[in-house]
């Protein structure tokens, strides 16, 4: 079952572009990565799905219901962690969490305790006194305390130290195992790679590609390093080879096509080392921005 169905969704802020003709679907139980540089339209998409803003055209459904007409109903099962967290400054952490919980029909006291213990959150401090990272932790607990079925994470790791990031990822994986669908927006590709099964790449308001994270890595480019004394980079001027770079006696390039062509070429040279590897998502990603 599709948890999110987005159909030709378009949003203009006056004349400036938000997103244009965005269509994609997210299946129940998956972790969907949504990547793109700043200003590409990631947050706009999430804000449309939460009906914080209204679409210019197109439609979107969450849990099979239209977001513009069934917003409150849909949001009952949504957890949202915004990229920048801001809360009522004068409130204490525990009061804010209580206030947040009171919107849902659940007894969330135990869950609040578990989550805040896990995130090492100090409950009696005022929001004003919290550091950026600590506010983010409040955001995490706040987004999860009602056990939502769908999680929107908008660049969630900014401000968290590596240890907390790991805890956070573990927490998300655990939630996912319980069947929670996760929509993970980020411009840090490493974390998307670690967590997501499928990714959508958004660029200048349009979807550039949606694919399985493995096919994205496999079907595309190979990264080849060849090391040989006195190697001439021109030797690898083959069809399918791009981005040749020479460095001392090493040549790096990307290759797309029949790998045997490259293998034959390499075997004709007396090499001292060869590495053929999957490009990182980062490198694939750069390709989409060229």
């Amino acid at each position, binding site marked *: 079952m599709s948890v999110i169905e987005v159909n030709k969704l378009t949003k203009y802020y006056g004349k400036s572009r938000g997103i244009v003709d965005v269509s994609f679907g997210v299946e129940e139980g998956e972790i969907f990565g949504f990547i793109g540089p700043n200003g590409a339209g990631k947050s706009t998409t999430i804000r449309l799905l939460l009906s*914080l803003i*209204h679409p210019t055209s197109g439609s979107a459904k969450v849990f099979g219901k239209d977001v513009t007409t069934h917003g409150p109903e849909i949001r009952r099962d949504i957890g949202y962690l915004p990229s920048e967290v*801001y809360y009522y400054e004068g409130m204490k952490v525990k009061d804010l969490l209580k206030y947040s919980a009171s919107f849902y029909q659940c007894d969330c006291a135990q869950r609040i305790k578990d989550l805040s213990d896990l995130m090492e959150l100090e409950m009696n401090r005022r929001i004003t006194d919290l550091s950026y990272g600590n506010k983010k932790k409040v955001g995490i607990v706040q987004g999860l305390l009602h056990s939502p079925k769908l999680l929107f994470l908008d660049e969630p790791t900014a401000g968290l130290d590596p240890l907390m990031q790991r805890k956070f990822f573990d927490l998300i994986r655990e939630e996912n195992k319980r069947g929670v669908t996760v929509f993970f927006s980020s411009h840090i590709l490493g974390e998307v790679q670690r967590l997501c099964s499928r990714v959508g790449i958004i660029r200048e308001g349009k979807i550039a590609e949606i694919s399985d994270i493995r096919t994205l890595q496999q079907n595309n480019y190979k990264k080849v390093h060849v090391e040989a004394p006195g190697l001439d980079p021109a030797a690898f001027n083959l069809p399918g080879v791009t981005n040749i770079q020479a460095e001392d006696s090493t040549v790096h390039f990307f290759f797309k096509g029949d790998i045997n062509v490259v293998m034959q070429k390499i075997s004709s040279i007396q090499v001292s080392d060869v590495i053929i590897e999957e490009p990182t998502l980062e490198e694939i990603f750069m390709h989409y921005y060229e």
Partner: protein
Amino acid sequence: MSATIFKHEFISRLKSVIIWSASMVILLLIFFSIYPSFSSEAALLNEMLAKFPPQLLEAFGMTHIDLSSILGFFAFLFTFIQLCLAIQAGNYGVGLVSVEETDLTADFLMSKPVSRLQVMNSKLFAAVCSLLVTDLIVWASAFISINMFRSGHTFDAGRLMLILASLFLFQLFFLSVGLVISLLVKRVRSVTPYGLSLAFAAYIINGFSGIFGDVKLEYITPFKHFDPSYIAQNGALNTPLVLLNVAVSVIALVVSYWLYLHRDIPAVS
């Protein structure tokens, strides 16, 4: 309506309500404490007032005021109470929904399972209750301070109550007009300048209305709609002006609802 939002709104405004109410109580008490010495010299004072240029008296709304009577004195003082409470109501109106965007908490609230309509209803109801609490305190302290210092003078309690009761509609005007202004401007950075200018603009227009003669500026200011000396003299509200006032408030509210339901909540960064 969402009881959760209502409670949060009402409690977060409680401190401000207490400060405003306490200030009004102090203002009333101090002002009325000079009434006994004032009333004994009233004949002299009225004589002196008669010598002022009529335009000046008009500007301060003192043409029809008999300062020797309790209600006359009260009506004069009441304009300042009105000014203060206009600022309060204007602030609440301007800040009602804009404060969530200024403090960047709109994302938090709007991602909760509540509709815009519920948010607006709850916030509005909480603000109206806050204003009512202030009014109740002003009403009670007006009666108390008058009875403490009236030194044997009598007054028409019915007329006093009418003046006091008009306060609520008066505040409602500033609440709803403040609200619609906050939704019409692109972004409210700070609430107080808006609330202050709204209240003072209305107050000054009332003052000028006499000077300009033919230009009927008074139709647009609640200070005229609910002119306390008019009520004190006639024992009744100026019905057409009050209806005009209510109509403006209702239109402002309807427009506010429409704007808010269709509003794009601005992103934080």
